[in-house]
């Protein structure tokens, strides 16, 4: 299964000084296609900053970020939007459009990816039901509770079936029951072939799932429970069930006339130690 070993996102020797107090130092890790990775660290460890670098809202001082076929050191500004349409992002502070309904907030992400209105309407029922907000689709964010807003942010991020989902604290405002549902949803999406990088401070949550976990502290990776291309991880990735689902998923997309996987054709060997 060589296809599964592809790296969908890689961070190579990334350093970034944000202030006198905080610097990301020589970060190195890669996320394989279809992998589920937790990024854990205390408040202010640099999780959000790292993710920001991955959706190229900020540029590293040195080092490289590669996501799909997009390379941070060779990016033109005009291609950033193509990158962002290929990935899903849950922002820690939600970033919902205040003046639009739940439906429109999710639809806008689908629209910018060029998807048709009938398709959007067809899929919206499913997407919003998954986060339990279908009955609130015509409400504006101001009329939603914190947890509901967070779920809108999640819905928007998964709406385009991205090849990789960057989720920053996606369950911070959710109660245990909804948290469980959302995590199940993320795993389901993951098992459909989408890589997930989930930043959280909730060590309990991380422990309970036993996935690969990258520990960040004060701007450094202090531990990485799994390395792509290392024996045990490879096995877990190429798990036959996951693989089958992934293939089904891709086939469906081809059936819709889309390119096979716009972000998946970079096969870059691991750069950092």
């Amino acid at each position, binding site marked *: 299964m060589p296809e599964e070993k592809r790296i969908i996102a890689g961070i190579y020797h990334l350093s970034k000084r944000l202030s006198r107090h905080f610097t990301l130092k020589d970060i190195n890790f890669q996320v394989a296609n279809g992998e589920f990775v937790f990024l854990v660290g205390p408040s202010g460890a640099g999780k959000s900053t790292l993710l920001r670098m991955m959706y190229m809202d900020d540029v590293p001082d040195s080092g490289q970020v590669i996501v799909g076929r997009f390379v941070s050191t060779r990016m033109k500004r005009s291609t950033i939007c193509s*990158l*962002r349409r*290929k990935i899903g992002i849950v922002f820690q502070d939600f970033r919902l459009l*205040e003046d639009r309904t739940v439906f429109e907030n999710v639809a*806008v992400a689908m*629209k*910018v990816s060029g998807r*048709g209105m009938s398709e959007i309407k067809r899929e919206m029922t499913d997407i919003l039901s998954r986060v339990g907000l279908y009955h609130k689709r015509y409400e504006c964010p101001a009329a939603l509770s914190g947890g509901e807003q967070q779920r809108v942010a999640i819905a928007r991020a998964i709406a385009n079936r991205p090849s990789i989902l960057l989720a920053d604290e996606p369950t911070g405002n959710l109660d245990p029951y909804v948290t469980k549902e959302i995590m199940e949803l993320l795993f389901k999406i993951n098992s459909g072939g989408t890589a997930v990088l989930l930043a959280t401070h909730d060590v309990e949550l991380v422990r309970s799932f036993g996935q690969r976990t990258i520990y960040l502290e004060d701007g450094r990776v202090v531990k990485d429970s799994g390395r792509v291309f290392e024996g045990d991880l490879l096995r877990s990735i190429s798990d036959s069930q996951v693989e089958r689902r992934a293939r089904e998923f891709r086939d469906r997309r081809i059936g819709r006339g889309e390119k096979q996987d716009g972000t998946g054709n970079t096969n870059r060997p691991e750069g950092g130690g």
Partner: protein
Amino acid sequence: MSAFNEFKYILDESFRMLRRRKASNIISVIIMGFSLLVLLIFILVTLNISMVIDNAREEMRVYVYLENGLDQDVIERVRTGLYNFDSVRGVVFVPREEALERFRERLGEGSALVDDLETNPLPNSFEIRMKRAYSTGEEMGRIAGKIGDWDGVEDVRYGKDWVERGEKIVLGFYMTDFTLGIIVFLSIVFVISNTVRLSILSGRKSIEILKLVGATNRYIQVPFIFEGAFQGVISAVLAVILLWVSYKVGSRYLPGITFFRLDGIAGFVALCAVLGAAGSYIAIRKYLKR
């Protein structure tokens, strides 16, 4: 398919934005509308004054005084000669009797003076009306010089002093008006372009979010450009309507003033649409660059 979708979505987005940003749109349109009104008033006043000036110019005449006791054919030769000038529109022969009568009228209350005269000291003359485009002191001076040398012509006069003084005043008016026009125009441009900036300032956050979810610059930009064009049209129409109402009221007191022509208004509205769009485009660019 995707291009069509993009077009549809951008259009859709544009219309929605007008509704969403209603407060800021209304405020902007009021600012722009009243600014444009001031500009239009300035232009309309200039237009009307220059029409008055043109009319006054048309009233100017060159008088060709003939020698006494000329033969009819000499007079006719002069007349033909006058018609040969490109700049001459019409020629009228004024017999000396009529000239005295006119002089008496012009003196008005001093007309008793004329009655004291024993003989008519005035000569026969031709009165020349110039073509509008040539009603300048320069041209009148030029033909006066030529005509003065002709046989049978005693003297040529065209109120040199008056014409020159008048032209100086008119020049002064146009200079002032042009200077003020530039200042007013630039002021309106500054007011409107800054209104657009101020209005877009409040949309920063949405722009930011749209960029983060992968919207192309076009998707973000076009609705704002559309909004700018819309504001331009509505405020132009508002300005024209307000001006027209003022004109209707004003023309009761000042009959004879003219309004803009319909094609001028259409052009103005179109220009405002283009400028509104361009202003928005320029204002939003800096948020897209980062």
